[in-house]
Every structure is written in structure tokens, then in C-alpha cells.
């Protein structure tokens, strides 16, 4: 015997309106760079005994990606997911498609074009065969990953004509093409790909269990964004707690390569021309250095920033653009925003030595950086160097005291170059790696 019973608890398709007593956040979504982990609560009123109910989850979720995190006291007998299973009788796809992804798994969209948001699609029907010990309302929690919740962070920093303080504002834009509107959802963001985050979390857990030493490479941390509703299309969520005024000052920055050569690997790149050919640019930038509030900045995702100046008449002008909170600057004390080329001050970077010792598993590199100041007054210069060959390194020597580590592959040195003179900085970096297993 089958009896169809309308489910009164829920707001569902086609305008059925219910009046649930909602908890503070019914759903929970963690946004990673590549996918989002969704914990979706399904509340249902059922009679005692066996029954089936239909829920909707994000588009293109396949059965093997769906997890039942909490059964809410129900016995769960089977979970049916209507998916695009490819019949075996269908001719095989063209030989050019050599991926082994599961049918319906559209995560490859990220690989082909990381910026391409999957199009809006209908949700996936999930039928749950359950048995309830007694009639009543139950709440299950389903979990799955989806690449249909893509996001970007962006920031503005506003200063005054005095240019001694700046106020940061930020927002995350979430594009929802899951086919589901997530009401009352606790949002978190982690500025890392899920795989990398998992590896780091597992390392820390293992270290806490057996007393090992986890990696010292600065890792992304989770940032709570509060409770929001993610409807179809784009939702902007303001990042709160970051707008305390911060000190700001003008500085010259010599950062010839930026992060573009970074090899995020435990084994260093061995190319002897890396960072040497083509030679490092000599440009030094006029920049603003803004103090970072370590507590408020914890877990903030990377994104572009515009430095704006509010003029006395109230108008806003753009001073410069840069990026904030990239992985390379994860532990930096300051953020720097370039606004133009410094006149009369240039830098030169020369590599003096490269030694690879395979027996001792060490690669040593020595650099000399010359700053040439043609101005009539002393200038302070921040020299930013990227240890681009790999993530396991040690700065064995610097001619500057108190170099500052800013991130996994980046450190900075400060010096003052007297008027119409040159200043030379030396440093030696040693990369190490583990023996092959």
C-alpha cells in the first residue's frame, strides 16, 4: 500500500510555504577555493514505520558524493539518487576524453576553466527510504561537495588626505548555481583548495595524536562569515570585524618577481636559470604600507583591493590597486599597495652562487641586491624576496638585521639608502628536501 502524504514542514518547490521553527542556522556551508562542502538539514514529519521522502540537493550531486551525516533518529534503509548514469549499451565517448570521472561529476569544469561558473541547473532529487520508530518530526543532515557555489573576495581600503590611516572593507560574492536556495545558512570560508586543506588538517591531527611536528608552513584558517541566505545567482556577504582604522605610511618597495615564480613544493626546483634569466627588473615602487591587525585578519581570503582616498570635498579617488591576504603574505605584519614607480631609485639583483648537493640534500643560493638612490635625500626601502624554488628553506645569512618572514615563500628586509649612494644587501638561502622513499 502506498499513501502519498504532503510534507508540511518544509518550504519546497512551486511555492509550498511552511512554518518551521527554524534553528539559528539550518544549513552549514564551508567555501573552499575549488568546491564547497554543504551540510544541508532536511526536516520531515513522518508516520511510524517505513516510508519514503524526496529531498532536493545541489545539481549534479551523484550518489557516491552524498553523505548522511545525521539520521536524526530515523532508520535509513536506502538513498536513491537519480543521476545521469551512462548506460553501458551507449557507445563509448570519444577517445580524446581520457578522464575517469564519475558520470555527473562536473568538477572538471574547474580544471578546464577555473573562472567558469557552471550554469544554473535543476536540483538533484534524492529519495530516502526510512523507517521511523514513531510518528513525528525528524531532522536529517545530508552532506556533499559541489562546485556550484563559487566565490570571490574583494576589498576596498579608504584613506584620508593625510594618508596616515586606512579603513578596510571587504565582501565575498557567492554565485549559487546549485538549483537550491539555501536559507539561513552558516557560512565559512577557507582560502585553500579542499585537498590541500585536508592534507594540512590530517597532518595536524596526526601530530597531536603521536606527538610529531607538523609543518611550519603557514596554512589557511577558517573564517566565519555569519548566517546568510544564498539564493540563485550572486549573493554578496559583507565581511565583518575588519574595519578598525589601521596605521599607514609611504614606503618604497623592491619586489622584482612577486609570486609568479613560486614553486609550492617540498622539493626545490633545480633550474639554474630560475630567477636569473630573464634578469630581475630594476623597478622600485612607491607604495603604501598598511599595518595588519593580526586578529581581525585571521582567515581572510585573498582578493584584490583598491586603495581609495576620500578627498576633502567627499569625492573618492583611486590611489592604487593590489592584492591582500594572498598565501604568500599569510603571516606578514603589513600589507603593501603599490601606487607607482619610484623616481630616482632602482634596484639590481644578482645571483652569486648556486650549489646543489645531492648527497646532503641541500641547494644553496646566494644573492646580492644593490639599491641605487639618486635622490637628494635618504630613502627607506623594503626589499621583498621570494624563496621561489620550494617551501622548505632556511635563510642562512642576511646582511640586514631582523628580516621578516611574511609567508610560506616570502620574506622582507628593510634598509635605508643614503642620498646619492648605493646600498648592498646580501643573503644566502638553503633549500632542503627529503630523500625519495
Amino acid at each position, binding site marked *: 500500500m502506498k499513501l502519498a502524504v504532503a510534507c508540511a514542514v518544509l518550504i519546497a518547490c512551486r511555492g509550498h510555504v511552511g512554518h518551521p521553527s527554524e534553528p539559528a542556522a539550518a544549513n552549514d556551508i564551508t567555501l573552499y577555493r575549488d568546491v564547497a562542502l554543504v551540510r544541508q538539514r532536511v526536516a520531515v514529519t513522518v508516520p511510524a514505520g517505513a516510508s*519514503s521522502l524526496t529531498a532536493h540537493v545541489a545539481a549534479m550531486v551523484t550518489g557516491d558524493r552524498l553523505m548522511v551525516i545525521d539520521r536524526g533518529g530515523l532508520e535509513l534503509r536506502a538513498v536513491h539518487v537519480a543521476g545521469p548514469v551512462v548506460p553501458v549499451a551507449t557507445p563509448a565517448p570519444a577517445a580524446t576524453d581520457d578522464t575517469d570521472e564519475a558520470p555527473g561529476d562536473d568538477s572538471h569544469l574547474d580544471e578546464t576553466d577555473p573562472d567558469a561558473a557552471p550554469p*544554473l541547473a535543476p536540483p538533484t532529487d534524492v529519495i530516502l527510504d526510512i523507517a521511523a520508530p514513531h510518528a513525528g518530526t525528524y531532522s536529517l543532515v545530508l552532506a556533499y561537495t559541489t562546485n556550484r557555489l563559487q566565490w570571490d573576495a574583494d576589498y576596498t581600503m579608504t584613506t584620508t588626505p593625510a594618508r596616515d590611516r586606512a579603513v578596510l572593507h571587504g565582501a565575498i560574492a557567492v554565485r549559487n548555481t546549485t538549483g537550491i536556495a539555501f536559507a539561513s545558512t552558516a557560512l565559512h570560508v577557507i582560502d585553500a583548495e579542499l585537498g590541500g586543506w585536508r592534507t594540512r588538517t590530517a597532518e595536524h591531527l596526526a601530530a597531536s*595524536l603521536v606527538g610529531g611536528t607538523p609543518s611550519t608552513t603557514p596554512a589557511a584558517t577558517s573564517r566565519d562569515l555569519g548566517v546568510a541566505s544564498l539564493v540563485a545567482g550572486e549573493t554578496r556577504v559583507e565581511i565583518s570585524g575588519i574595519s578598525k582604522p589601521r596605521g599607514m605610511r609611504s614606503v618604497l618597495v623592491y619586489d622584482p618577481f612577486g609570486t609568479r615564480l613560486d614553486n609550492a613544493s617540498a622539493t626545490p626546483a633545480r633550474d639554474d636559470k630560475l630567477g636569473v634569466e630573464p634578469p630581475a627588473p630594476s623597478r622600485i615602487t612607491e607604495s603604501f604600507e598598511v599595518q595588519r591587525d593580526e586578529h581581525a585578519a585571521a582567515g581572510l581570503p585573498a582578493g584584490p583591493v583598491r586603495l581609495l582616498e576620500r578627498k576633502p570635498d567627499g569625492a573618492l579617488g583611486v590611489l592604487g590597486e593590489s592584492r591582500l591576504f594572498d598565501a604568500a603574505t599569510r603571516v606578514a605584519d603589513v600589507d603593501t599597495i603599490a601606487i607607482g614607480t619610484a623616481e630616482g631609485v632602482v634596484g639590481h639583483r644578482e645571483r652569486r652562487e648556486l650549489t646543489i648537493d645531492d648527497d646532503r640534500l641541500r641547494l644553496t643560493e646566494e644573492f646580492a641586491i644593490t639599491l641605487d638612490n639618486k635622490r637628494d635625500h635618504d630613502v627607506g626601502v623594503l626589499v621583498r624576496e621570494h624563496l621561489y624554488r620550494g617551501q622548505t628553506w632556511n635563510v642562512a645569512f642576511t646582511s640586514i638585521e631582523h628580516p621578516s618572514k611574511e609567508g610560506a615563500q616570502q620574506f622582507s628586509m628593510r634598509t635605508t639608502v643614503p642620498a646619492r649612494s648605493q646600498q648592498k644587501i646580501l643573503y644566502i638561502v638553503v633549500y632542503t628536501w627529503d630523500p625519495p622513499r
Partner: protein
Amino acid sequence: MLLGMRVVPWLCVAIGTAAAVVMSVGHAGTGPRTSITIWGAPATPVAPASLFGGQAYGAVTTPTGAMIVERREVEVGANGEVRLAGVPATLDPASVQLRSLGESFTVSEQRFVPGAATPDEILQRHVGEQVTVTTPKGEVIGVLRSVDAQAIVVEVGTGDQRRLQVMRRDGFVQDVHLAITAGSDRPSLVWRVGAKQPGKHDVEVSYRAEGLTWTTDYLAILDEAHHSLDFSAWATVKNATTATFENAELTLVDPGAAAVAAGKPVAAPARFTVPSAVKLGSGESVQVELFPPRTAAKTRTVVVFEAMADQSASFQQFQAVDCNQLATNVGTARSEVALEVDVPTKDALPDGRVRLFKRTGSRLEVVTEDPLRSIAGAARIRLSPDAEITGERHAVSCNYDEHAHVIKEKIELKLENKGKQAVDVVAREFLWRWPMFKIESDESPRGTRAGAQTQEYRLSLPGGGKKSITYTVVYSW
């Protein structure tokens, strides 16, 4: 601030949430009964290079697909025809058996009629039947005589007025209305049987079909104190047969994918019976649990140490008789930290990935997603490589008796904990020289069999401590 509030017609709201739309109440056990045995997807077996008699002559062959047994009531026509529509398109006709459950009958003929998929194929199935064709000049009613890509031929009229009307399909024919014949367009099995009387008969039909597969996924949620975890094992059954099976009693067979990949015979594949009958819809994937979930199961943290990679796959056809081969293993070891939990199975769990979460307050943090390591009665979830447990393995002695066909090898494994904290170590040793072997009684500490050619040793290593494992293995053939 919320922007972009566009709503599409099928957009569903996940609230209080999410989205149960319709609930139906029912009980399994009514209607026809179907039992389905599905073999797990085997890894590609390593084909022996040259076997007398060829591969199919006594060599390892792993079943694939599914064996389906349906009990149905069928109608035996006056001409002895029995038709069963809606069978899988992927059915293997050679495997079909029809058996009467009541009055016995003989089968004189059996046919498998594939389903019609294209418009042309569907029209062809209705040749000889009454059709109604809509044209700009009105409706033509008659018997369909012939169809091709360009034209349709209908016999109209009766008696002297009978004639054939050929109509162009490109433009002239607007619609063709066909009488629905039950199941005529779906894949069907048709038998001619010799029954004493036509009418309803209870029969059992069994056949093998491709397109039914299952894979395993595991879910583990670690508590905040890292002492216990909830562990569940889910089989995802995918139905790509084009048929729907109601009330299917499922048995899932794990051929031991790893063993098959290594070319090893599998003595008794593990079988899992799903306790409740389920519906397997066409194109659907269904998740069922392999065993009742374990909640708050106590976990053990272990470091799994393997001194060398398993070489046994290379020595299934001939023995590794060179005593110098891999006699000493230094720097080839792998150690990894893992969480271990007991599971209620006599066999190793099927290969599959495990997703490990950790509770942090009200949140869940993702920890790992890795293949599950499993032995009989226990599951291991790998966390990360370990650098503190090191070791080396060497053969203390090795004797090859060419005439007695015996290799006797004594192995010593020295383990060291370079960390400060005591850890429980599971050392895995591969008896890789030949599948037939026995461990002699001088084994210290006592090990346990963890696989066809794998022995495991458990010991506790204090911080900075060293311990040894010794055993003698005798291979014979």
C-alpha cells in the same frame, strides 16, 4: 546585503530546512520478487604471459555484472507465447533460464528482443498494426506495411477498395499515432513454451546482465576528543541496465579488487546482503549500508610501518628463488599515522574511499579523503606520513632447496621510534616470494595473518625506543 534575487521556476529552498517535497508510505514485499547478486567492479587482472590452455582454461576469471533472479506471474498465450518486457538491454541472452514454479512446461524457443530506441526502430516494430497518420489532407487510417527514412506505406480500405498509400515523411506526414502494445518497444524476452493450458503461470527467470555495478564509500566522524568515531559503510549501486527493479533483494559480492589486480585467486569473495528490499530505478544510483553503522566506536592511533613495497604480484606464476633479491631493505620503508576502528566483518572491507570528518564544536572539519585500509575485523584511516618510526629489514638467513622445492628465510625487522612519545606500531610484512608458505613457531612477537600474503605484527615502541621482529617463513611448491 543581498543582491541578485533571481529565482527560477524549479529553484528549491533549502530551509529548516531543505526540501522534502513528497513522502510516500509503503511496505516492501508486495508484487514480484527479484533477487540480484552484483559483483563489485574488478580491477583489470594481470594476464599471465603464457599459460597452457590459455587464460580461460582454469585460470582466474572474475564474474562481472549481476545475476538477476525474478519471480513473476506471466501470461501464457494460446499459441504458447510468453513475453517478459522491460528486461535489461544489457542482458546476456545465453544466460537466460525460465523455470515454472507451478505446473511444469517445456521451453521450445527463446528470443531476446532488443528495445527500440530511434523513431525508425519504433515504427518498424509496429509494421502490421493499425496506425493513424495525420497529413495536410487529413487523417489516413490503415495498417502499417513498410517504413524507411523517406516514406511510410499504409494499407487502407477493404475488399476491392484495398490499396497501398505511400506518403513522404519529409513534410507530408505530420503525425503517426500508434496503438500501444504493452512492452513492445522495450527490451523483452519471448519464449514459446509447451504448457498444458494457457493463462497465468508463476515462473522464475534468471539471467546475467551488465550495467549493474557497486562501489563502496565510507564515512567516519571523529569526536572532538579524538577518542571515538562514528563509522558507516555505504555501497552505491548504479543501475545502467535501462530496466527498473522493484523490491530487489540485493547481495553485493566483493571480488577483492586488489587481489584480482595482482592476479591472485580469490578463495571466497566477501558477500554483503542488504537487509531491506530496495527499488533500483533505471539510471538511478542507490546507496545502502553494508552493515549497521558503528557509533562512538573507540579508535586506536597506530603507526603502520611497511619496510618494503609488496612484490608478490610479480611472483604468482613462478617463485622468487634468488635469496639475494631484496635481502636488505634500508630507506625503502613507509610509515603512516592511521586511526584504527573495529568493524563487524570477518573479511577485509571492500576497497573504497573513506571521508574522515572531525567534530569541532557544532562544525565538521574535513580531515581526509583516502582509500580505506582494511583487514579482517578492522578498518584503518590514513592520516599522514610519519617520520618518527623508522626501520630496516634484512634476511638473517635464506636457504633455497632446489630439490625439495623449498625456500626457508629468516627475517629480522629492526624498528626505532625517533619521537618522544610512545606509539603503537603495526608492522606489515609481505611474504612475497610465493603464495604457498607457512610461518614457523619462532615468530617473535606473534603475528596475525592480514591478507593472502601479508602478516602483521603489533608492538608498542616507547619514545626513543628500539625493538625487533623476527620470523622464519618457509615457502614450498
